[in-house]
């Protein structure tokens, strides 16, 4: 072979190599393109699906409230997502160990009162179903497990699939049980909020939105008073049925919503009858609810336990609580009302009782020391509810600012 020819062929080979190399590189475009399309889909689809706010006839706030009151939705089923962000320090595992401690100490882990406090923090998915006043079901979806409270006629069942334990009580304290202990659905929360509507409150209709695929009006409830930590409550009301679909409570301090509970899916069709029937699984541990005598004591306890969730209703919640708790006084009115009760001892702030000790110190470190005419005390702040525990054991709780709380305590003296 002549040297020139050889050079030529090498040149040709190099060009070919280059071309082949390009063709090889081109193949990698495919996976990159797939990633790109996927990323675009993830980013764009929610934006495209948001077709803007629906066009609905104008309506006044009063008409809308009447609509909610007149709403007689008897049958519904759906999925509710509820997130609560009280701004509590993230105790994570500690809270877990406390609840499990309480569960093993105080009876079945299927006991509703010990379980529903879980709703007071984090994001949870609930499934609700209702068919008339006699059949309701609320399920808290957990990882590979579920906690259901089923109200069917006279029976109230609670089933915890994780531990395979059943809690059962009959309607006496039950009818209050299934319904009132779970102020988790937007409807319950809205009812609580609307109770507070008086001259201290402004109620307006603020446009429309789409919730769970339904056209809805947005009702905004704002306190007129200053001193409360509640910024605004916004409720999305189904334009057709008057069913509240979404409840959002934003704090006066701004930032993320304290409570945000809304349907992500809702259907007004009759739920399957089997949804509400419950027979304890063979071999499951069944705890019977207490009979009526100790039952009242129990509901007191429930009231206290439920405070985490109840309190999030804002001022109306504390008004409600007043009926449930003995020795509880409400100071002030409207949004600025402060509930006060005597815990009897200074150490009671850790109502966990025997877990006291260390925990007391721990909780104490989160509080702010204040003093006033009431003596000395510690203020525990969340983004919504502030609590003042005085050294002589009085507790003041309200959805008001720290200053307002201290003032209320001083005037109470």
């Amino acid at each position, binding site marked *: 072979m002549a040297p020139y020819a050889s050079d030529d062929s090498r040149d040709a080979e190099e060009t070919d190599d280059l071309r*082949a190399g390009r063709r090889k590189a081109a*193949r990698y475009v495919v996976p990159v393109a797939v990633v790109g399309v*996927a990323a675009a889909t993830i980013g764009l689809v929610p934006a495209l699906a948001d077709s803007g706010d629906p066009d609905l006839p104008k309506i006044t706030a009063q008409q809308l409230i009447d609509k909610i009151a007149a709403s007689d939705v008897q049958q519904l089923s759906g999925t509710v997502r509820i997130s609560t962000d009280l701004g509590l320090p993230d105790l994570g595992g500690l809270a877990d160990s406390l609840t499990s401690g309480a569960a093993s100490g105080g009876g079945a882990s299927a006991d509703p009162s010990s379980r529903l406090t879980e709703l007071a923090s984090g994001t949870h998915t609930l499934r609700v179903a209702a068919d008339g006043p006699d059949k309701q079901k609320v*399920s808290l979806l957990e990882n590979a*497990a579920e906690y259901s409270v089923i109200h069917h006629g006279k029976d109230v069942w609670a089933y915890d699939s994780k531990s395979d334990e059943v809690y059962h009580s009959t309607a006496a304290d039950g009818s209050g049980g299934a319904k009132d202990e779970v102020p988790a659905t937007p409807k319950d929360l809205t009812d609580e909020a609307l109770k507070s509507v008086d001259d201290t409150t402004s109620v307006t209709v603020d446009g429309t939105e789409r919730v769970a695929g339904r056209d809805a009006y947005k009702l905004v409830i704002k306190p007129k008073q200053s001193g409360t930590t509640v910024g605004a409550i916004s409720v999305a009301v189904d334009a057709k049925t008057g069913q509240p679909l979404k409840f959002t409570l934003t704090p006066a301090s701004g930032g993320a919503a304290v409570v945000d509970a809304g349907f992500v899916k809702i259907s007004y069709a009759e739920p399957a009858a089997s949804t509400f029937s419950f027979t304890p699984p063979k071999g499951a541990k069944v705890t019977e609810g207490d009979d009526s005598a100790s039952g009242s004591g129990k509901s007191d306890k429930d009231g206290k336990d439920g405070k985490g969730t109840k309190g999030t209703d804002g001022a109306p919640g504390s008004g409600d609580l007043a009926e449930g708790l003995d020795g509880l006084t409400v100071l002030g009115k409207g949004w600025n009302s402060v509930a006060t009760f005597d815990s009897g001892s200074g150490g009671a702030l850790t109502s966990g009782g025997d877990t006291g000790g260390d925990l007391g110190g721990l909780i104490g470190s989160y509080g702010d020391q204040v003093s006033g005419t009431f003596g000395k005390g510690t203020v525990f702040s969340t983004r919504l509810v502030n609590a003042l525990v005085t050294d002589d054991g009085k507790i003041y709780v309200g959805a008001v600012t720290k200053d307002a709380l201290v003032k209320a305590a001083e005037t109470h003296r």
Partner: protein
Amino acid sequence: MSRAEADAPGAPGAAMAEGAAAHAVTVRAPSPLWTLGLLRNELLTTFRRWRTLALLGVLAAVPVLVGIAVKIETRGGGSAGGDAGAGPAFIAQVTNNGLFLVFTALAATLPFFLPMTVGVVAGDALAGEADAGTLRYLLVAPAGRTRLLCVKYATTMAFCLVATLVVAVTALAVGALLFPVGDLTTISGTRISFGDGLGRALLIALVVAASLIGLAALGLFVSTLTGSGIAAMATTVGLLITVQILDQIPQLHAIRPYFFSHYWLSFADLMRDPVYWPDLLKNLELQALYAAVFGSAAWARFTSKDITT
């Protein structure tokens, strides 16, 4: 040499010496039946391997162990899983209904045992052939690289299904043997018949098998990157462990939903009544996405690389 190799499907003889390229063009196009034959061959080779049988044996041992452990622990009448429902999902229900052992066994093996075996098989798929020096002979046959890759992936997916079914069937047998069976209570508290329960168990097994598709594609891609079978297996299983650990870190919540293992345990949603679909669908979408991305990456790599062994 590389010029010859660039033409993938038409010239399977490409990996041979330079002179062969001219002849390769004249090779007839393989018939579709050929693919089936190749697939059958692959399946036989894979499932006849002692290594594969040993892996399946390990998987079958898990439900047996769980079943016996639960039986012994609850002999006195206590409930399994301790106070706060510790242990794998569904374990508390096993004593009352043997069918739940299927779900418990799948929940116990899905985080690690099942994907580990898939990682071994997927990682070995191409790198193992390259390691043993058999890959070029496979390519000498008129198969084509894309076709060979598809057959390898199909074999890996078949292994995913077989492995899952081995766990499920063993668990069902052990459960029926050691515990009573009958109507069962879903985790939502409603009752379904045993037949319905069996149907859901089968559906769950299929979903679990489908959950492994993403990892299988990832393993296959890793397998095209190296010529060492052991390296590919170790990398795949290492990736699996890394992702599982990262998935536990709350601070990474923004990217966690895109980890292939993030929705694995969503199969339990099939035991709710009515079935809760969102996470199940997300899982399947995510697996399809992983299969598409890493499958095409494996294709891009495998069809363009120099094969010397």
